[in-house]
């Protein structure tokens, strides 16, 4: 009988900026002051947008919303490493990543206002993926296309720790490895999938090691450290552009509720939340930038004010657009060329509703059915 070890693996953990905001020069990416400040501004923008969006949802002006509070560094750090023309394939919590890619705020709001207008694509951003874990295959498809075309570009896909339980996620990584797809898999391990903690999701010690079975590289990074995330993602993208896909696990924490319909007090402790509040990515980065002399109270106040104004303008713009929703447009984009049956149905709809004239969602919803339902949405996802 022969027994010998035929495989072994290890997973690296990377951090550039530690919890005390000390920088490891060997790991830190080479960024100029302007870029560093831009990271900071984007993180503040994302945080503030989340706060405003949750408040709007509470007032009934937005639908269910998934805030990314606590995950700003994981998203801004990684999305900024992707070239603008390279595709970003998000999950449903990637507000900060999309802001970093220049996505207009009113679009993000429109999506949460239940308007398809919000998922229109300009630039290389896929629309959000609501089914968990189904979208990594799309990024692998994009990245395989790059390999076939011989182009040195990559795609990057975001998903959560919960998503890694889905077969599709493993299929995406395995196929990417087999076909040399130019893709980076960016898992934001925020510790929770709704009420299910990471430890109940998988017995694997790290998410990053899930790459091993697919034969691709896996690496873990402190997801609350924007500089570490940026450095690791930048390297991963470099590798992916040459046909070697990488799984990056960004260790972070979802500090707020899963969505505005969720109540985290049912399943987690305040101590845990407090522990992660102390590791907040924005606070850590701010501390570093102050120490570097790039930020002081005055600059911070300026940035806050600028962010506030930009969001206020965009909320106004979103509300304006909301007033112009044309219901009959639901028929217009089902096929490139509408079928005769769809044309018939659209005509019937317009006849019955008087031409599909403008209604706001508020005007559109009425009746006790919905009143009852509204309560449900308070409990649903």
């Amino acid at each position, binding site marked *: 009988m022969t027994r010998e070890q035929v495989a072994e693996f290890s997973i690296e953990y990377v951090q550039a900026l530690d919890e005390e905001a000390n920088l490891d020069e060997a790991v830190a990416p080479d960024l100029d002051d302007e870029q560093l400040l831009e990271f900071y501004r984007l993180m503040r923008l994302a945080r503030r947008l989340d706060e405003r969006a949750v408040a709007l949802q509470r007032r009934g002006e937005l*639908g*269910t919303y998934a805030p990314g509070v606590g995950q700003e560094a994981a998203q801004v750090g990684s999305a900024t490493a992707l070239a603008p023309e390279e595709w970003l394939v998000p999950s449903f919590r990637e507000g900060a990543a999309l802001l970093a890619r220049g996505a207009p705020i009113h679009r993000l709001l429109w999506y949460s*206002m*239940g*308007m*398809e207008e919000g998922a229109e694509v300009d630039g290389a951003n896929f629309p*959000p993926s*609501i*089914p*968990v*874990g*189904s979208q990594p295959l799309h990024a692998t498809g994009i990245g395989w296309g790059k390999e076939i075309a011989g182009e040195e570009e990559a795609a990057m896909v975001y998903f959560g720790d*919960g*998503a890694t*339980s*889905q*077969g599709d996620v493993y299929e995406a990584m395995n196929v990417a490895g087999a076909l040399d797809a130019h893709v980076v898999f960016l898992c934001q391990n925020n510790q929770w*999938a*709704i*009420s*299910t903690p990471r430890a*109940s*999701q998988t017995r694997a010690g790290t998410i990053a090691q899930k790459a091993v079975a697919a034969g691709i590289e896996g690496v873990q990074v402190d997801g609350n450290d924007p500089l570490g995330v940026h450095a690791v993602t930048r390297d991963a993208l470099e590798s992916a552009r040459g046909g070697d896909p990488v799984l990056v696990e960004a260790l972070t924490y979802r500090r707020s509720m899963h*969505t505005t319909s*969720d109540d985290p007090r*049912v*399943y987690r402790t305040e101590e845990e939340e407090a522990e992660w509040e102390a590791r907040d990515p924005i606070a850590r980065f701010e501390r570093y930038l102050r120490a570097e002399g790039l930020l002081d109270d005055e600059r911070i106040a300026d940035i806050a004010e600028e962010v506030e104004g930009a969001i206020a303008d965009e909320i106004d713009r979103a509300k304006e657009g*909301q007033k112009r*929703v044309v*219901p009959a*447009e*639901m*028929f217009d984009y*089902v096929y490139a060329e509408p*079928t005769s*049956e*769809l044309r018939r*149905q659209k005509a019937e*709809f317009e006849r*019955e*509703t008087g031409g*599909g004239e403008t*209604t706001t*969602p508020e005007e*559109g*919803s*009425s*009746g*006790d*059915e*919905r009143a*009852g*339902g*509204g*309560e*449900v*949405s308070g*409990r*649903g*996802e």
Partner: protein
Amino acid sequence: MANEIRMVEAIQQALDEEMARDESVLVYGEDVGVSGGVFRATKELRESYPDRVYDTPLAESAILGLGVGLGATGYTPVTEIQFASFAYQGFHQLVQHATRLRSRTRGTLGVPMTVRTPYGGGIRALELHSESFEAGYAHVPGLKTVVPSNAADAKGLLTSAVRDPDPVMFLEPTSRYRASREAVPEGEHTVPLGEAEVVREGADVTVVAWGAMLAETLSAVGRGDADVDAEVIDLRTVSPMDSETVLDSVRKTGRCVVVHEAPRTAGLAAEIIARINDDALYYLEAPVERVTGYDVPFPLFAREDAYRPDAERIRRGIERALSA
């Protein structure tokens, strides 16, 4: 004795009572344990049955596939798929295995699994949280598909589903979960699968609906012209379908309207109309009307009211059936 409770509570009650009655019943799915499910339908079950209620990893294919193994070997799996649109992630397990094991093994193995899942629109939910796919399930041989419209039926039908030896897809209308408090029998309450109910008798026209559309239908005929004497049928189980109850009614009224939230093309209205053509054509005084969703992906919520049939559209359908 009856209690005034909501549909979601009636569902919880059925699960609780069936778990108490039958030790083989196992409840599992995403977030069903500690948090009691995102709609709280499995609330407190874990406290009562700590070894029989499980939170699973986020994997629908696993949830349904596990049910095949558990079900074939002595358990009675009652799973929750968090939202109906994510049952697609495990659809192949249903179609390729769960529903075929009995015929493949000439009856020696079966899968007594019940798959509970919220479906349908009307609650301003996220994208892909509002679909009505009952026709897709009805197209799968070996599967029973149940859609309760009220709290008492939800309890009675779910109890029957859990006791059924074959796989049952149990579609719960989210917009009805907390819509009203209704009288629900306490203790043992079963409603047989495969039997429709005439919920309102009438002579002029038959209206067939199920799930969330039943309330819309009742409000349509309630508010309609006084001289419209509509008979309303709640199909309750869409597969196997109780066409006899529908046919008897159509033979009486001579007119029929079928209402569903799902898209029109290849929806269940088409099947019901085909059965009427087969067995009651000569009783018809007008073509059968259908009031349905459109052949478009279920829109985000700013447009969902435009998509979903409501009392107004149902009333127009009835008027068309009466005027032809």
